[in-house]
């Protein structure tokens, strides 16, 4: 399941809803991305996430479907926020659940790596020296590259 929303999410409630009644699940892995208060040496007062409505949902669904093809997952969830967020706020939640931990760990890492390079979101940071668009990172591309096959 995937969701794109402005509102915050409750991590415990999301996990409970995802795993409820699915007693085959033996392990759940979660990744939560947060807004940092520092970008390199620059203070960040707020971060605004812009996205491409329609394509975002489509890409997240594709990425999730690919994870389910590669690993025996019993449940998975991606929640990604947009709008203006303060340092410490949650940006993204990835949850994977499987009978055994290895599939859940690997699939969670794959989902985060792939969504960072394929989901159409753009971050803009505001600080004391003004605003700037965050540039894509080469190490994110490399992280995504290792899952290619």
């Amino acid at each position, binding site marked *: 399941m995937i969701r794109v929303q402005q509102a915050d999410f409750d991590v415990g409630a999301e996990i409970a809803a995802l795993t409820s009644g699915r007693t085959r699940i033996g392990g759940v892995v979660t990744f939560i991305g947060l807004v940092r208060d520092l970008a390199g040496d620059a203070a960040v007062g707020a971060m605004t*996430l812009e996205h*491409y409505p329609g394509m975002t949902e489509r890409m997240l669904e594709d990425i999730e479907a690919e994870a389910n093809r590669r690993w025996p997952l019993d449940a998975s969830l991606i929640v990604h926020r947009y709008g203006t967020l303060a340092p410490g706020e949650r*940006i993204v939640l990835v949850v994977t659940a499987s009978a055994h931990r290895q599939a859940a760990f690997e699939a969670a890492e794959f989902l985060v790596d792939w*969504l*960072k390079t*394929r*989901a159409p*979101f*753009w971050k803009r940071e505001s600080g004391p020296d003004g605003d700037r668009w965050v540039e894509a990172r080469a190490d994110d591309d490399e992280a995504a590259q290792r899952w290619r096959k």
Partner: protein
Amino acid sequence: MKVLYFAWLRERIGTGEEEVHPPAGVATVAGLIDWLAGRSPGHARAFENRTVVRCAVNQDFAEPGDAVRPGDEVAFFPPVTGG
């Protein structure tokens, strides 16, 4: 053809969306960029460094050589930075 712009491309061009009618010879993403870049100084600035411009045609990632047709939704944006 509907063209969408995101992030700093949207800021430089001054709009997030426009309906355009390129001439029949414009058949690829690269050709569309060439044509769009001539529409205004803002467009020219948005497309001045094409190595940092990504494209989607009908909400799928597209390469410079991929086809564009009347009625398509074509989006231009910088490399993505979500997650």
